């Protein structure tokens, strides 16, 4: 492993490591799970898929576990409720807990009290609000860091939400292949995929104009050591293959399950790769220079 030399802090752009190396990988994974879980719940609640909502709930629990593994003192995690006024991590922790609780109630009502439609709708809407909050807060937590110019962008929360929703709708498509709503879900998936690709391009293009550090970070994303993950994980698996399958199925009229499942898997991998490359690509300014 490359050992950073002390002088590099002052003369070179240095990579952030706290949220990507070692246990830091778990926060990238937690952000990915948070996004995809929120997106899946919103889609599943709209299409009234009990299985979809249940998987979203499980993914959110996994997010919580991943978060705990990342923490240095997990037993103190209850303290993270304390500072919602200023800290996005604190707000996010509250959103996750509320989402898990409200989704749990929704699932119980939907499974065992299907006649309580008023209560089901109310809890679905409430859980949906926190699903969205859980999905978008990961973007805000990252974009709030003004020290890292690549992250400090208003587009990033939108990118994370659309990526999460896109992954969520892909999973819903995967579990609804034999359902009668598959065509509608496919159409929604096509739109979100194209939106995701457009927002990703705008985000990276905007970053190259925002500052020299961000431009350097984008160049590193595309050509450096993490370029392979960016091009294969994000671009090929996350964008090109799902869009190709979507377009192909649109013109073919009917798609095979194998193709759709391939697109679902590649898109989920793309979502994870996106979180990884964004966190890994975060660079600090050298201590001795200004922008």
């Amino acid at each position, binding site marked *: 492993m490359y050992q950073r030399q002390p002088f590099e802090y002052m003369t070179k752009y240095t990579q952030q490591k*706290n949220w990507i190396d070692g246990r830091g990988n778990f926060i990238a994974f937690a952000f990915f799970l948070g996004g995809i879980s929120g997106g899946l719940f919103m889609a599943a609640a709209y299409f009234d898929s009990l299985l979809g909502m249940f998987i979203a709930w499980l993914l959110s629990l996994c997010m919580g576990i991943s978060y705990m593994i990342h923490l*240095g*003192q997990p037993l103190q995690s209850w*303290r993270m409720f304390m500072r919602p006024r200023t*800290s996005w*991590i*604190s707000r996010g*922790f509250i959103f996750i807990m509320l989402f898990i609780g409200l989704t749990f109630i929704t699932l119980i009502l939907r499974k065992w009290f299907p006649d309580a439609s008023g209560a089901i709708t109310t809890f679905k809407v409430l859980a949906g609000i926190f699903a969205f909050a859980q999905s978008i807060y990961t973007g805000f937590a990252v974009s709030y860091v*003004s*020290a890292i110019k690549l992250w400090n962008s208003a587009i990033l929360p939108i990118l994370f939400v659309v990526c999460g929703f896109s992954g969520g709708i892909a999973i819903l498509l995967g579990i609804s292949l034999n359902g009668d709503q598959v065509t509608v879900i496919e159409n929604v998936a096509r739109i979100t995929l194209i939106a995701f690709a457009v927002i990703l391009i705008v985000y990276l293009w905007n970053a190259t104009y925002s500052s020299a550090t961000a431009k350097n970070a984008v160049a590193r994303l595309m050509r450096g050591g993490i370029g392979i993950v960016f091009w294969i994980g994000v671009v090929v698996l996350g964008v090109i293959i799902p869009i190709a399958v979507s377009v192909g199925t649109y013109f073919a009229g009917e798609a095979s399950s194998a193709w759709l499942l391939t697109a679902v898997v590649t898109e989920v991998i793309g979502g994870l790769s996106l979180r990884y490359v964004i966190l890994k690509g975060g660079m600090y300014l050298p201590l001795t220079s200004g922008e």
Partner: protein
Amino acid sequence: MARWGMVINLHRCIGCYSCQIACRQEHFVPRGIYFNRVLIAETGSFPTIKKTIMPVQCNHCKEAACVKVCPTGATFQREDGIVIVDDKKCVGCGYCAVACPYQQRTRFENSKLEYFPGQGFTPYEELGKELFPYKHGTVLKCTFCMERVDEGLKKGLKPGVDRDATPACVITCPTVTRSFGDLDDPYSEISRLIAEKKATPLHQEFDTEPSIYYIRF
């Protein structure tokens, strides 16, 4: 209430690392962690090589990014401007370390790291664990030697003037590179240096208002 700050005169620094070592001794800083670092870089190519020396540490910013992002309130700012971490509250999420533009925070991840690998902890390290029981998984950083400052004030001493009330890195420096004092006192030594020598902090563009100023070339 005073707001403690420091001026580092880069014209005087010879890169002897004595401040870095004094800091380690004062706080029994574990191996792999730096509260105070002397960075020495050689840039350019022969024959136009430039050597730059820069001591760095937590800037105890007035508008500290780390304080704002901390989800538990473990990182907080005292009335005198010193930013500290309460390890009883720190969950080790690392958000403060990520948010610090100066990269002056480290998560204490390996409490088993010895100064002499494979030879066990030295008596010095064992003593350090008793005096400064740093908690595994929490974030560590420079404290501006708040113990020295607080004790000194109790004895009626003046930080920045009296040795016993001044940070270890300042009193150790053989070339008087560092000066410590009250930024809010216009008659203090550091206020005079900032005004006369046009000292500036690092990366003012982040609007964090650091308390450490540098007299640069």
